[in-house]
C-alpha cells in the first residue's frame, strides 16, 4: 500500500461526491468517481483502488451489486457510506464484504481516518453499526452449527459497546488497557463473524428493524 490510499467514490449525488472529494483533501488520492453500478464497476476495474467509498443505494442495483461484481479484485476494500440508517441496508453491505460502515454525517477527519483504516485492512464500525451488531448478536441464542462464529466473546462485546458509546479505537485501548492492535483485531473478528455467520436471526432482525 502506498502512503496515500487511492480511493474511488461511488455515489449518485454529484454534490455529495464533490463534497467528499473536497473534504478528503490531501489525505487520500481520489482516482475516480462513479454514479451508478455500471460505471462504478468500470472505474474500479480500471483503477483497482485501495478503497472504494460505496453508497448503499445506487441507480442500476444497489451497492451490494458493486460488491458482488468486484469479488475478483481482492485487494480492493470497500467502506459503506450511507445516509440510510436502515439496518437492513447496512447489514446487507457489510455481509456483502464491505469492511465497515460510516454515516454521511461523519466529519472529514473521521472519514479520512476511516479510509486509512480500511486501506490498512482493518474494520471500521460507526457507533450505529456497533449497535446493530450488538443487537443482532444478542438476539435469542441460535441453534449454532459453529458456536465460534455465532457468538461474540465477552471481550468483543466490550469493544463493541465502547464503539457504540462513541469511543475511538485509541480510547478503547486505554479504557480496556490493551493495545490498539488488539482492539483492531477484535473489531476485525467481529466483522468476520458478521460476514460469515449464518444466523437466520441476523437477516430477519435486520429486515424487521428498519430504522433505529
Amino acid at each position, binding site marked *: 500500500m502506498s502512503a496515500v490510499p487511492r480511493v474511488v467514490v461511488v455515489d449518485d449525488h454529484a454534490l455529495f461526491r464533490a463534497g467528499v472529494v473536497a473534504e478528503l483533501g490531501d489525505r487520500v488520492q481520489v482516482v475516480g468517481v462513479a454514479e451508478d453500478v455500471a460505471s462504478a464497476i468500470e472505474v474500479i476495474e480500471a483503477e483497482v483502488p485501495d478503497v472504494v467509498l460505496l453508497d448503499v443505494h445506487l441507480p442500476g442495483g444497489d451497492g451490494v451489486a458493486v460488491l458482488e461484481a468486484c469479488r475478483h479484485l481482492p485487494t480492493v476494500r470497500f467502506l459503506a457510506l450511507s445516509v440510510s*440508517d*436502515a439496518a437492513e441496508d447496512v447489514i446487507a453491505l457489510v455481509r456483502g464484504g464491505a469492511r465497515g460502515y460510516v454515516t454521511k*454525517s461523519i466529519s472529514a477527519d473521521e472519514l479520512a481516518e476511516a479510509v486509512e483504516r480500511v486501506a490498512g485492512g482493518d474494520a471500521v464500525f460507526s*457507533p*450505529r453499526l*456497533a*449497535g446493530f451488531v*450488538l*443487537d443482532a448478536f*444478542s438476539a435469542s441464542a441460535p441453534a449454532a452449527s459453529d458456536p465460534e462464529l455465532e457468538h461474540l466473546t465477552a471481550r468483543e462485546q466490550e469493544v463493541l*459497546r465502547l464503539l*457504540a*458509546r*462513541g469511543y475511538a479505537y485509541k480510547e478503547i485501548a486505554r479504557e480496556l488497557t490493551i493495545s490498539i492492535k488488539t482492539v483492531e483485531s477484535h473489531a476485525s473478528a467481529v466483522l468476520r463473524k458478521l460476514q460469515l455467520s449464518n444466523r437466520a436471526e441476523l437477516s430477519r432482525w435486520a429486515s424487521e428493524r*428498519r*430504522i*433505529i
Partner: protein
Amino acid sequence: MPAEHPGAIMATVMAATVPPVTELRRTDPAASADPIIFGVARGVAAKYGLSLPVVRAAFATLAVAGGIGLLLYLALAVLWRDRPTSGPAPSAARDLGAGLVTLGLVWELGHWWPGVRAALVIPVGLVTMGVAVGWRPGDSDPADDATRPRSTLVRVAGGLVLCIGGLAVLLGQRVDIATFRDTALALGVAGAGAALVLGPSAVRLVRSFSVERDERIRAQERAAVATHLHDSVLQTLTLIQKRADDPVTTAALARHQERSLRRWLYSGGVVDASGQVEPGDRGWRASAERMVGEIEDHYAVAIELVAVGDGADGSQSASVAVAAALAAAREALVNAAKFSGDTRLSIYCEHSGDRFDVFVRDRGVGFDPAAIGADRRGIRDSIIGRLEGVGGTATIRTEPAAGTEVHLCVPLDGG
C-alpha cells in the same frame, strides 16, 4: 336444405353462426387479417366501409335463409378477383344499414324461396346482426371508445334493438311442442347475443372504473407527498436560505428537518399541523428519539443515538425505571450541550432485559465534580436523585479537557 324440419334448420343455423361468432371474439387486428375461407367478407367490408363481423354475420344469415348466402359467397369468391383488403373505416351507421338490407333481403326471400323459414331465420338473423353490430374489433381498447363515444352508443343501441327485435319476433309466434325446442335454442342464441353485445361494454366500464380509481389513489398520494414536502422541506429550505449567514441556526434547521423527514419516510408516522411527526411506536426507543430531537433543536447540537435491545412490554415498574433513566439522560445531555462546549454528543442506550444502561458522552471541557457548588442542584437532584428513586446508580466520569461520560444504570424486575 330440408326446410320442413325446423330442428335440421337450427342445426344448420348453429353451424353457420358459430364460425363468425368465434371470429368475432378475435379482436386482434393481426389475427383477423387471415381470411377464414376466401376473404370475400373482408373484401365486401373493405369496399363498402363496413365492419368485417357485420358482413360475416350477413353472409351467415343469408346462408341460413335457404343457402342464398352460400351461393352469393361462392359466386363472389369466383367472379370478384381483385378484392380490396382495406378501405374506408367502418361506421356504425353503414353497419346498421347493411344489417337492415340483409334482413330486408331475407324477408323478401321468405316470400318466394321455399328454403326460408322466416320464423327462425329472422330471429337468428336479428340476433347475429345485433352481435356483429355491437361487437367490433377494437372494442377491447377503452381509449378507442373514449374518443368515439357517440359511435359506441349507436353501435351498442343498434345491436340491442336487433337482439330484442329477434326475441320479439320469436315470442310473437305460436308456441307448441314442435317449436319449443327451436324457441329454446333461439332464446339461447339471443341471450348469448345480448351478453356478447353488452359484455365488452360492461367489462370496459368496470376496467375504466378501476383504472380511474387507481389513478385517483395515486393522485391523492402524490398530493399528500407534495403537501408534506411543501409544508416541511420547502419551508425549511427557504428558512435556511434566509439564514445562510447563521451557521448554528442553519444546522439546527437542517437537523430538525432531516429527523422529521426520516420519521416520515421510515416509520410511517403521521405529520400534525405544526410539522411535527408523531412516531408510530411508543416504546422506549421512540421516547429516546423524541428526547434527542428536542435537545438537538433546542441547544443546536448533534447527538448520535445508538439503541440496543428491545425490552418490549416490560412491567409497570420497569417502564417507570426506564423513564427515570431517560429523564436523567435528558438532564445529562442538556448539561453536556450547555457546558461542555462540544457540539457532537453521543448517547448509547441498552436494554438487556434485567437492566437498562445509558451512557451520555461528550468530548468537551469536562469539569471537576468536587468543585460543583451545593447550589448547583442539576446533577444531584435531576440525575443522581432520580436514579436512586428507582434503585439505580449514576456514575460520572470526567476530567478537565477530556470530556465527560455519565453512566446511568437502573435494574429492571425481569422486564
